[in-house]
């Protein structure tokens, strides 16, 4: 506050305020050239605030640094507008909306100007307009637009809920899974009337899509597509089957869906299968094609599911499994798997009699040190044992010189054996292997090499011992 009685500071501050608050930049152009505060200080040689004289001889831009307060804003590049202005601007669209419509109220006016209502000679004008060869623009356009381009989804356009008044609608973000990955990142926003069926929504999506991106060739029937539940980031929830095309869409409360192309109906092209289907249909009623479709869909889903689990593999997930070792009895632990590491945490035993030596220490292994994971035993009682192999340098003579690495042997790799139910075991193995495939840790490669060339390595080792 004491600074405010300093003329030099005030001048400098005013100058900088002008420069920095003028969005047009004209103040800056005008004022930067002449440095009034400095020339003043030179003239009077009084009241320079500390540091002002230090900038002597430097370029003019340095003057800006005199006013420390303004610098932060200068850095932003954009001057913050006062909150009132911002608030007013926010209201602006509403104002504009109201402003744009001009309201004209009926006024009863007594008296009128009869000259405004002179009869015009319409017959003469009509004759002038008449010409011999008449063809309308509409007809010309119709001729130029052959009907072969008919959009097969035209009939679904009427389910578009946009700009419907008084009709309940639903809004969905649709991920088009058949698009190239780069284009399917953003959901297509579709508003559909609430009474539409799922297949109507599919048709509407296809209609909207072909209208917006004419270049992507969609099939010509809604039967080729299925709607799945999706997350807001476009991740499809494959655990649920696709929505029943005959159901009314308003039954489903999801806001994101994924449109998935069902694979080509290969069997329907195979005449033998078709015949069989027809026979089955005759025998078992109309549901057969649907069952056929369901089977096809399941195959697709399986394929997609494998793909998705690979994508999801690096996401953290924990499993409750039991360690198996020769010494200890089975101990329940929690196995946490993520893209970075694998954690083994003890589970607090509820039994009071749990023996303390059975407790597993909490350890974690960097994924780079994980070498392999495989099922080593699937017992008949639906239990499976999996082996997690990891690189453990600490177990070797730690202080040995670096040449040790050249003799990396299989003995550096330790393993855990876990037992759990078979399906969980398979899931864990798949997850870890997916992570390993994605990251390909060095130790894994080494381990695989070692395992393959085991006899060879052993011989090498023996030779080394002889020396």
């Amino acid at each position, binding site marked *: 506050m004491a600074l405010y009685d300093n003329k030099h500071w005030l001048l400098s501050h005013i100058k900088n305020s002008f420069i920095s608050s003028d969005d047009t930049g004209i103040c800056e152009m005008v004022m930067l050239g002449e440095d009034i505060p400095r020339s003043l200080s030179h003239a009077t040689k009084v009241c320079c605030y500390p540091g002002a004289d230090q900038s002597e001889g430097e370029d003019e831009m340095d003057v800006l640094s005199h006013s420390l307060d303004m610098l932060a804003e200068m850095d932003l590049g954009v001057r913050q507008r006062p909150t009132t202005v911002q608030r007013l601007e926010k209201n602006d669209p509403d104002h504009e*909306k109201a402003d*744009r*419509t*001009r*309201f*004209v*109220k*009926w*006024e*009863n*006016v007594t008296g*009128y*100007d*009869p000259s*405004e*209502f*002179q*009869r*015009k*000679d*319409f*017959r003469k004008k*009509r004759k002038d307009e008449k*010409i011999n*060869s*008449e*063809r*309308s*623009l*509409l*007809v*010309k*356009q*119709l001729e*130029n*637009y052959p009907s072969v*381009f008919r*959009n097969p989804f*035209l*009939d679904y*356009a*009427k389910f*578009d809920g*946009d*700009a*419907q*008044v*008084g*009709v309940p609608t639903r809004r969905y973000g649709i991920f088009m899974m058949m698009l190239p990955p780069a284009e399917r990142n953003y959901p297509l926003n579709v508003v559909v*009337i609430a009474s539409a069926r799922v297949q109507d929504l599919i048709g509407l999506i296809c209609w909207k899509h072909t*209208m917006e991106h004419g270049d992507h060739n969609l099939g010509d029937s809604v039967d080729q597509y299925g709607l799945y539940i999706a997350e807001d980031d476009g991740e499809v929830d494959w655990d649920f089957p696709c929505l029943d095309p005959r159901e009314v869409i308003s039954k489903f409360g999801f806001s994101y869906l994924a449109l998935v192309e069902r694979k080509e109906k290969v069997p329907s092209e195979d005449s033998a299968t078709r015949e069989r289907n027809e026979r089955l249909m005759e025998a078992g009623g109309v549901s057969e094609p649907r069952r056929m479709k369901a089977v096809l869909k399941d195959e697709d889903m399986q394929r997609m599911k494998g793909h998705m689990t690979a994508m999801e593999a690096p996401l953290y997930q924990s499993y409750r499994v039991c360690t198996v070792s020769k010494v200890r009895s089975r101990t329940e632990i929690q196995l946490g798997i993520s893209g970075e590491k694998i954690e083994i945490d003890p589970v607090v035993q509820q039994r009071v009699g749990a023996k303390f030596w059975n407790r597993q220490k909490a350890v974690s292994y960097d994924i780079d040190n994980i070498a392999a994971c495989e099922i080593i035993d699937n017992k008949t009682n639906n239990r499976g044992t999996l082996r997690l192999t990891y690189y453990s340098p600490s177990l070797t003579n730690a202080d040995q010189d670096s040449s040790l690495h050249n003799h990396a042997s299989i003995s550096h790799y330790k393993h855990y054996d876990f037992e759990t139910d078979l399906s969980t075991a398979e899931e864990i193995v798949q997850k870890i292997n997916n992570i390993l495939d994605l990251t390909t840790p060095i130790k894994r490669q080494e381990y695989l090499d070692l395992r393959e060339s085991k006899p060879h390595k052993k011989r090498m080792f023996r030779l080394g011992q002889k020396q």
Partner: protein
Amino acid sequence: MASDSQSGNEQVILATGGYDHTVKLWQAHTGVCQRTTQHTDSQVNSLDITPDKQLIAAAGFQHIRMYDLTSNNPNPVINYEGVSKNITGVGFQEDGKWMYTGGEDCSARIWDLRSRNLQCQRIFQVSAPVNCVCLHPNQAELIVGDQSGVIHLWDLKTDHNEQLIPEAEASIQDIAIDPEGHFMAAVNNKGHCYIWSLSGGIGEEPTKLNPKHKIEAHKRYALKCTFSPDSTLFVTTSADQTARIWKTIGFSLVQELKHDEQRWVWDAAFSADSQYVLTASSDGVARLWNVVTGKVEKEYKGHQKAITALAFRDFIVRD
């Protein structure tokens, strides 16, 4: 000037409106809906495009709203209000000086569009709700049809008016005059169509109506009648789910426009070369028909409810 207006203005405009409280603009030759505008709180009873093709007027309950045809502004540009009931018909003087409307408040109105001094703001009151208004091509006589079955000829210059009742206790549903000013047609709720030949109507001479013909056009309610641009045909639409095309010479039936899904046909318009007819129906579909073959050439689907009004502008192309 001519070339300017041709490049900018000469485009086909098709608009439909109805009970779903929307006005839709269509690409007439593809059937694609290009734009949907909300017509808040009201059905659309009648549509017309301004002579300069910049705005479309939608008449509904208590309002006439004008929407911009050249931009995507979803809100009305102008909202005309102050009428207590439904506005049933709307149209424009050919130079765009004024707009005429008819309403269920038993009056026909002339709205001065220049709004400064209102030199031609007028009101014409009758004793029954007005179902339809039709402007004579001479731009100086307004024909008003009301629910009690009276046709009023309102001379706008002298403010003089005449009445005639073609059929007792039959509500006049629509009135049309052909572009050449030879004929006037009126349809009523019995499905009957009356034709007059017109004389006079030029200079100071008022138009004279000479009864010419009566057609039992439909078995049920007739809703609309319109002449073709070349004045050789006219179309009547009806609650009997058809539209029928008639010749103005001999008044013989040329074509019946019928479709299995079509319901009440509320409105119709001819293409500029009189070769096609557009219809608006309660099944929510507008259709383009070939007059010669009677076949549907295009369907305009998108409305959720009945389409009750249609406006169409087409042009003659000079090759």
